[in-house]
């Protein structure tokens, strides 16, 4: 059954005789930020899809999981661990998820946009059941590991600390995705259409824009982000059947904290969750995993529309 994937969060500090508390804190902080960035890549997809389609997609976690498993399969086909195979994975797997998303959007999601929330939630939940079980049938229940490319496998020396190169890499990819999304949403025509579809879908339609196509593209973008997160995660920790269910709940926490539909909010929420879980492990150990749910409940009680969201009409 779905269990929280502990390995993904528990990271070992660098070995050294004089590991001081501050040093460990900084170390944990950086790892936490890396976790947060990974979470952001996935959660931004969820929030974008919600913003435009007004559907909370439970299956987003499943897309992420399929991305991770796809990365595993592709890496066994290619020479695992080489840089070229890593780059191929990054280029192939996320678009493949986007294609899956495309077919699901035009065949299923499109039918329920005008329905009530319960129907939408249940539709995506049905997809979770189907997709998660398909993954189990295809890939089996064993945890899978994907080898990191040599370039990213070791550790780098930053301010006297040995940091895993891969975590630093994710730390760099996160902002690139964030800036890319910002540029896409605010500086391109496609982004303008997406943002218009969030606020005035009907007006946009009457202006002669094919709104359902805007929705489909947004959905595909969301799936692409989920797939990207999956590929990145596959190289970070072991991939098993629980990761989808676990991550979708974390994404919910992120999106709720930041505000449904807000990309900036998702960034902030992800960093709060990622850093929070990692840093709180020092004083609280495994209890730190309670943190996201606690913050989520807290934000919903105090400011239900999230830090960057707007109150529902």
């Amino acid at each position, binding site marked *: *059954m*779905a*269990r*929280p994937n502990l390995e993904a969060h528990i990271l070992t500090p660098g070995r050294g005789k004089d590991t001081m508390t501050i040093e460990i804190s900084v170390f944990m902080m950086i790892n936490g930020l890396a976790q947060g960035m990974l979470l952001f890549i996935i959660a931004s997809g969820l929030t974008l899809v919600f913003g435009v389609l007004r559907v*909370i997609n439970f299956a987003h976690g499943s897309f992420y999981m399929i991305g991770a498993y796809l990365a595993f399969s592709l890496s066994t086909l290619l020479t695992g661990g080489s840089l070229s195979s890593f780059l191929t994975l990054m280029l192939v797997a996320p678009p493949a998820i986007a294609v899956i998303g495309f077919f699901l959007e035009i065949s*299923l999601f499109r*039918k*329920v946009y005008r329905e009530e*929330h*319960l*129907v939408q*939630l*249940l*539709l995506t*939940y*049905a*997809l*979770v*059941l*189907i997709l*998660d*079980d*398909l993954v189990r*049938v295809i890939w089996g229940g064993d945890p899978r590991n994907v080898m990191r490319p040599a370039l990213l496998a070791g550790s780098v020396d930053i301010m006297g600390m040995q940091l895993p190169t891969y975590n630093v890499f994710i730390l760099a990819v996160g902002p690139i995705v964030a800036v890319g999304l910002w540029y896409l949403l605010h500086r391109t025509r496609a982004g303008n259409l997406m943002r218009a579809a969030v606020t005035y879908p009907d007006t946009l339609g009457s202006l002669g824009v094919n709104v359902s196509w805007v929705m489909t593209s947004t959905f595909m973008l969301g799936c692409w982000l989920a797939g990207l997160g999956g590929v990145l995660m596959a190289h970070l920790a072991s991939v098993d059947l629980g990761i989808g*269910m676990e991550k979708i*709940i974390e994404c*919910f*926490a992120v999106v*709720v904290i930041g505000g*449904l539909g807000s990309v900036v909010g998702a960034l902030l929420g992800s960093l709060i969750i990622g850093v929070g879980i990692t840093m709180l492990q020092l004083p609280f150990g*495994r*209890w730190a*995993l*309670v943190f996201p*749910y*606690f913050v*989520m*409940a807290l934000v*919903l*009680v105090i400011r*239900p*529309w999230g830090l960057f969201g707007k109150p*529902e009409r």
Partner: protein
Amino acid sequence: MALFVLPFILVRLGRTGEFWIWVTTEMIIMALFSMSLNLILGFGGMVSFGHAAFFGAGAYTVALLMKKAGVPMALALLAAPVVAAICAAVIGWFCVRLIGLYFAILTLAFSQLLYMIVFQWYTFTGGDDGIHGIPRPDWLTPEYYYLLCLVIFLFCFLLMRMIVNSSFGLTIRTIRENMERAKFIGINVRRYQWLNFIIAGSFAGVAGGLLTLLNRFAQTEFLHWSRSADPILASLVGGMYSFVGPAIGAAALIFLKIFSQQLHKGLVEVWAIILGLILLAVVLFAPSGLVGLYQRLFEKSKS
């Protein structure tokens, strides 16, 4: 009536009979769980994705009281709805402040919070090992346990029907139909929803306690959010705007699962896929569920 005699026929069938008693007992318990959810889902119009919290609260109450404190079964079963109601009162107090999607997410957040606490608190709840080997009185054979569950179920059933048909139940339905209007005519919407949430939670607690005794263990899976989805599916399949719909849905789903298992061992491997497909079909084609389908067919043949 037939339900009362059923176990005594089944017990003559030997092992398969015992298996079916177990299955029917589970059906009864899940039917109770689903009906308890439907008090808020169908009648209250509040989509809760955290009902497993109260199911689990009841389950763990019975497990802890009987295993660790040695409390007799009857008392433990009475304590289950009380503890569940307390949990529901605390969680509900926050949740009824929100509506729609936000309500659904907050219930989910709280139930996951509870799940994580139970999951992490090894010394008290046994973490993900759960609590095993809960003692059950010797006289309580499977068929007597079935009867016990049935009696409790019928009692809860009548109680819930009384609630639904009372003025309280009518008020709840008014709120579902038009919350603004309910506010205008002076109904304290939040308080009614809160009370309804507590009532639904305590019935879920009864169901959780009964399932713990049936399995003789309690585990974290009882609290996981995917467990919250089970009664929603049952309500949807059965028909959530009818009183008995969820019970029918729950029984039908369990029966279908066992049936597919008997039909072919491989089918139960892909049970989640089957369930997902059923759910898709219901969502897309028959939103009023089995009861709605039956009514439609029945009305057609009448005219």
